[in-house]
């Protein structure tokens, strides 16, 4: 009997060993795989168990967090949600994050390594830091001027500080309140469905994620290419251009809407927006030269991040001459985001040096100590300084004596370029009204702001649609706001 008892005891010991080995299997060896199983809600629960850090415009927080007392405790709230939605994006418990909420999620949710007191602290302690704050470069008044200028019409505004690349405004219209997507449940899914159904596509960030044919505003790039390539030596010298211009290798003629474009000089062509002169110049510069010039301004860049990803602006690299001619006036396959065209204006204003656009000024920990600061980085040299100076003069002429008169501001040096982009099948769509510009206080040595405005459904009467008429006043309001804040 004794021997049997001992054996039974040994059997019990075997059961214990089996349990311990199995516990080690689950808790140690398979733990990582189980932790990262998508059906494991722990990560989600922990993510929302502390308030999220805030996104700031100036010293004002445009976001907040509220404790719902539910399993996913903290929900995102937004102040002036529709105004800043193109900046913040949403942070939804149901649909994830977008834009800054997405790009700076590590900081806002407290998992970013920069927030840890010492390196690897979080890994060692399995702890998270309180969410840090993200201070944007956006200026409240500039943002509001763009938003109110669009007044609910479809369109976008992007404004930059040409000297630093800081984004002063990023407006998309119509907009939405990201708070509607914050939590969980049917109100959120209903809001999501409604926003996605809406014809105005309110969740589309038109300023950085939508590309449009840039129309005549692209002529600044073509002009820069022509000057840098030496195709044009003197902007005021007559060019050898017929009007209308027969596209090379075709019988298609390109007309001018403006008068006096035949053999017009480059400066004149910019001032009154001659299609023929600029198309011809593009062909003379050649495909390679045009592609290089566009690339120096930021076209064909797949990796532009502000830190949210910016949609690629396109200038085709493989075209026939007639296509190149159309592309050189911002038609054919050429497309650009509003931010891209603001970068064009900014490069000109900043003497040809293009700064990397950025939306985040600095990141602070929960106690307000700066843990990361965004410097001003050169993106590319877009043009020679001399070319930039000449382009500036031409753009000022557009505002003072040309199509951009609506952007003029008393006592301020303003340069601009209008654009009216045809689109749709056989150009039947309502044209997009473009305006790009920059402004500099006369007593200031540096430009204060560069702006791009696009208005999609500008007016009911197609004939009235023009960059000068619809987009320029918005650009002026934005520039005035930026000038008032600078210096």
């Amino acid at each position: 009997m004794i021997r049997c008892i001992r054996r039974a005891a040994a059997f019990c010991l075997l059961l214990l060993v089996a349990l311990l080995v199995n516990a080690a299997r689950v808790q140690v060896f398979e733990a990582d795989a189980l932790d990262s199983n998508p059906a494991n809600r722990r990560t989600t629960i922990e993510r929302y168990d502390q308030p999220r850090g805030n996104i700031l415009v100036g010293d004002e927080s445009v976001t907040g967090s509220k404790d719902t007392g539910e399993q996913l405790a903290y929900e995102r709230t937004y102040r002036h949600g529709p105004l800043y939605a193109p900046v913040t994006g949403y942070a939804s418990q149901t649909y994830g994050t977008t834009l800054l909420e997405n790009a700076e999620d590590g900081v806002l949710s407290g998992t970013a390594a920069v927030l840890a007191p010492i390196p690897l602290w979080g890994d060692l302690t399995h702890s998270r830091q309180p969410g840090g704050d993200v201070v944007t470069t956006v200026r409240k008044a500039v943002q509001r001027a763009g938003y109110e200028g669009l007044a609910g019409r479809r369109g976008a505004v992007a404004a930059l500080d040409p000297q630093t690349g800081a984004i002063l405004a990023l407006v998309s219209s119509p907009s939405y309140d990201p708070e509607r997507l914050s939590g969980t449940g049917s109100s959120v899914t209903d809001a999501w469905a409604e926003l996605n159904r809406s014809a105005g596509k309110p969740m589309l960030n038109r300023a950085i994620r939508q590309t449009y044919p840039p129309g005549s505003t692209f002529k600044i790039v073509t002009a820069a290419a022509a000057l840098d390539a030496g195709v044009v030596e003197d902007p005021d010298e007559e060019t050898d251009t017929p009007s209308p211009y027969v596209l090379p290798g075709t019988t298609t003629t390109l007309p001018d809407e403006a008068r006096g474009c035949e053999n017009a000089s480059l400066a004149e062509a910019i001032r009154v927006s001659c299609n023929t002169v600029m198309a011809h110049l593009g062909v003379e510069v050649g495909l390679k030269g045009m592609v290089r010039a566009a690339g120096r301004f930021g076209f064909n860049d797949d990796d532009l991040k502000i830190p949210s990803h910016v949609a690629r602006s396109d200038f085709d690299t493989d075209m026939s001459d007639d296509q190149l001619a159309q592309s050189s006036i911002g038609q054919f396959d050429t497309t650009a985001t509003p931010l891209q065209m603001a970068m064009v204006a900014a490069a000109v204003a900043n003497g040809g040096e293009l700064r990397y656009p950025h939306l985040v000024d600095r990141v602070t920990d929960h106690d307000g100590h700066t843990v990361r600061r965004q410097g001003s980085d050169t993106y590319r040299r877009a043009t020679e300084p001399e070319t930039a100076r000449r382009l500036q003069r031409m753009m000022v002429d557009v505002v003072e004596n040309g199509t951009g008169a609506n952007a003029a501001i008393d006592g301020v040096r303003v340069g601009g370029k209008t654009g009216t982009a045809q689109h749709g099948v056989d150009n039947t769509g309502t044209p997009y009204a473009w305006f790009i510009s920059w402004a500099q206080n006369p007593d200031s040595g540096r430009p204060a702001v560069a702006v791009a405005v696009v208005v999609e459904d500008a007016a009911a009467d197609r004939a009235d649609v023009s960059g000068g008429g619809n987009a320029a006043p918005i650009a002026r309001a934005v520039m005035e706001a930026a000038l008032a804040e600078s210096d």
Partner: protein
Amino acid sequence: MTATTADARPPELRLPKRRGVELSLLIGAVLISVYGYASVGLARNDAVPPDVAGYGAGLGLLALLAHLAVRLRAPYADPLLLPIAVLLNGLGLVLIYRLDLETPRDQAATTQLVWSTLGVAFFIAVVVLLRDHRLLQRYAYLSVATALVLMTVPIFFPAVNGAKIWIRVAGFSFQPGEFAKILLAVFFAAYLAANRNALAYTGRRIWRLQLPTGRVLGPIVAIWLLSVGVLVLERDLGTSLLFFGLFVIMLYVATGRTGWIAVGLLLAAAGAFVVGSLEPHVHSRVQDWLDPYASIDAGLGAGQLAQSLFAFAAGGMLGTGLGLGHSILIGFAAKSDFILATAGEELGLAGLTAIFLLYALLVARGYRAGLALRDPFGRLLSIGLASILALQVFVIAGGVMGLIPLTGMAMPFLAQGGSSVVTNWIIVALLIRVSAEARAPHPGRTETGVIAPIVEEDPPDIGHHRGTGR
């Protein structure tokens, strides 16, 4: 038949009773539980729960009363049994209280405390009233009759979560099958003790297996089949597995025939296969065990077993800390069948190992008492009771951790469940009683210390001690 402990014995043979050790360990067990209770409150509300003193005092008072009963009526009892029971019960209360915080509409800790108090009352009653465990031998047939009645009654009550094992009266539900465990162990022990020689040495021999005569084996197999059959009808598969294992172990220990183990294992495998493939409730459990993540792959989210594994994994080596895990995601059985997942998540592998070792110690002490005892009934009873604990811990822990298919059963002392906690207290009381008998000095017994048992070939007849120590 009875050799009471009241016999006069020479003073020089007095053994250390170690009641002081027991008291110190009890104080430690209560303090650990109070610390756990306070740490849940600190983790969740940054404050010690207001009733922590009441909880500590309550648990302490229960422990003290139990200790006094042992000190007065079973002074030679194993000093580890009671502290382990108090610690496990205290820890169980902490875990249930902690899970209550997640389910504001379903508070279970207070009820569990009431049942624990009742359990300790039963413990005291058993220790005080049962002067000699051999008295139970007389009631073997009453025990088995009661057990069968208890197990049959729930058939007439509605099923809860697929199993008909509850009786609901006046808002209280209780699981009579739990008590049946003890009664059946008593019966097996008594019957096997009385007939073990007949079982071992008579009957025909087939190949290497010595079969006892049907007259001897028949009744016990019938009763065992009946109880397992009833449980299968009630879909209480954990308990039927437990009874099966209990029967095989006790039969093996009583007869010393290894063949019984083989037969038992074969029958268990065959039975498990048949039930597992035919019975839909069990079939789904087996499917779950084979692929805990099937429902995730099907896009339906994590099932209960997957949630349990997530909880264990989240605990890792050291755990998240009491109150800081999310094992409530497991759902409705989090406080009962799956309580171990909360322990695994919040105390980690370290805490879980400690808990397993506490159970192992409890089982080992039961086995040790069995080894030290000289009466076959006492031996078989203590082995049976210890094996109940061991098998139950293995079946439920293996189930919630994906080692074996899940069968609903309560983790002894830890899990929410009134009948379970009362039953476990009675088991510990009986182990206290047999260990007191095992460790008490006996006249005429060659003193070899507490640890070394008397090694002897048992006499064929029971009741007389013919000590023929080696």
